[in-house]
């Protein structure tokens, strides 16, 4: 207790020197938590957006469908199993027919994935209501990233070419009925959405689909011939992998921030022991054991992080809480950035993140403070009293 009291007295007595260290360390605290909070918020948003725009509760995939191999698209389609419809689930199942095509915007040629979807669906956030046919033309909706790369605007007509089930090429003019903003590149970049009935007609594939999006979890439903059920978890596995790899980057950033903070503490400690040799000698002369002096210097160093946690809380809590509620505006659109990122990001600061960060920083600070302080145990007090460099 005495050593704690003396450590606090020394720190407060050192005035500006202490507060400078505390402020630098508190910045590290806040930035570490802020960075982790942004990554966590980004992760949660990415998962939520994937579910909202692409996955829903789960999907049946035609057994030959491989989203990473466009060559499988010609064969990966089939009729919707009777069992699904008779089970009174038709309202919560949205069939999607997928095929390859080529778009010719402004004389350029652009390979695209054509997706046919029910205009009335409400499982996904796509504004498919705009796909209701009017005046016999073919309406289509595209994402903003796709619109940016093709320079297409709402109301524009563009030529779309495809190959039907017999391998015959055909083409038609389609009208861009709507452009939507999304953070999910897999429904936007290189994708064009048409009414499913129109696409079935174009492909000569009546009643057929490539995937069936479900509004409820069918994990426990009986297995269907030709169709494989993918639940939400398995459909999110790719993004989970990306998040995991992003997590590694987060840990690196976290480590760098922590190292910078610790360097400040280490530097202060080394300098303290160098500059305060006479003081160390005096402590010993007045009756402290070397162990007590080591403990005093270690606690002094570690107390920096306690004070920094308090200082960080004073300005960090209002700052981070405001950001968590109001979000952070991201000036770069997702298409420019190349990865899924919302225009407004909502950081998530969990109690575990805050407590964990404080605890780890406290522990590391204590170790970093102790490390140079061990030198005190080897100091000769008579030499230290003279302030001689040892």
């Amino acid at each position: 207790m005495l050593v704690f009291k003396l450590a606090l007295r020394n720190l407060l007595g050192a005035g500006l020197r202490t507060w400078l260290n505390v402020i630098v360390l508190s910045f590290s605290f806040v930035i570490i938590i802020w960075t982790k909070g942004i990554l966590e918020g980004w992760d949660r948003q990415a998962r939520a957006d994937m579910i909202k725009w692409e996955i829903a509760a789960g999907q049946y995939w035609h057994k030959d469908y491989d989203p990473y191999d466009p060559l499988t698209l010609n064969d990966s389609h089939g009729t919707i199993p009777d069992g699904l419809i008779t089970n009174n689930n038709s309202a919560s199942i949205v069939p999607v027919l997928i095929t390859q095509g080529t778009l010719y915007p402004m004389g350029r040629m652009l390979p695209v994935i054509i997706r046919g979807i029910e205009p009335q669906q409400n499982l996904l956030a796509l504004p498919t209501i705009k796909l209701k046919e009017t005046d016999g033309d073919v309406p289509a909706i595209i994402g903003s990233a796709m619109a940016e790369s093709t320079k297409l605007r709402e109301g524009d007509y563009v030529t779309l070419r495809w190959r039907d089930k017999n391998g015959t090429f055909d083409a038609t003019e389609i009208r861009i009925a709507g452009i939507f903003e999304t953070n999910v590149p897999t429904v936007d970049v290189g994708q064009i959405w048409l009414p499913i009935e129109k696409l079935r007609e174009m492909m000569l594939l009546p009643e057929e689909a490539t995937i069936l999006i479900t509004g409820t979890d069918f994990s426990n439903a009986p297995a269907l011939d030709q169709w494989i059920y993918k639940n939400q978890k398995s459909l999110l596995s790719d993004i989970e992998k990306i998040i995991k790899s992003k997590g590694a980057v987060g840990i690196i950033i976290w480590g760098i921030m922590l190292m910078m903070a610790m360097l400040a503490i280490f530097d202060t400690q080394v300098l303290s022991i160098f500059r305060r040799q006479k003081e160390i000698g005096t402590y010993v002369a007045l009756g402290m054991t070397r162990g007590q002096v080591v403990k005093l210097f270690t606690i002094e160093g570690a107390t920096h992080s306690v004070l920094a946690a308090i200082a960080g809380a004073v300005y960090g809590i209002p700052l981070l809480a405001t950001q968590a509620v109001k979000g952070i505006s991201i000036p770069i659109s997702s298409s420019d950035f190349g990865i899924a990122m919302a225009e407004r990001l909502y950081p998530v600061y969990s109690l575990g993140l805050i407590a964990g960060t404080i605890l780890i920083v406290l522990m590391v600070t204590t170790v970093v403070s102790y490390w140079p302080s061990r030198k005190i145990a080897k100091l000769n007090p008579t030499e230290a009293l003279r302030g001689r460099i040892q």
Partner: protein
Amino acid sequence: MGSGKFTALNGIDLLFVAGEFTGIIGPSGSGKTTLLNIIGTLDVPSEGKAVILGKSVGNLSPGESAALRKSQLGFIFQTYNLFQVYTVFENVEFPLLLQGIETSKRKQMVLDALEWVGLTEKIGSRPAQLSGGESQRVAIARAMVKRPAIVLADEPTANLDATNSHHILQTMEKLNRELHTTFIFATHDEKVIGYVRRKIFLLDGKVSKDEIIVKN
């Protein structure tokens, strides 16, 4: 400098009696500070035996020697060695904190010690705000506050002018007389030599003369 062995003290045989006001006198390198450090249990003799207050310095564990310094020994240094971040009060209070003396008693003891040295009006000042003489008086108060059996003063007047030196020495003489504390000085300052009642002359690590001065 080098790996050669240096003998700081050789064949010293001294006995200090309680209440002495003694000066260990000699030129630089004569072994004064080494002798003081051994008496202060900050150093141990490589050969021979030093017994301080009935305890053999060489046989004390680090904890035991720290305990002895904490309760029975006071130090006054040439460069004062005050804690710069503490106030005068906190500097003087420090040895009592180590002893775990309770707050109200501690406060009274600090005020008494500051009164002995005439510095009660500087209680809230920091060492940087004090003159050399005032700093050394704070150091004396810090050494005396716990009423030690022995005070060891290493060149206490070396950084002070004549007026301040006399003031300091008179203060220590008064404390020696009133509290019967043993004072041992390491010095080559004529002013200090004029005050001590026993002069031990050291030369090249050996006692060349040990004389007791009878003062009226």
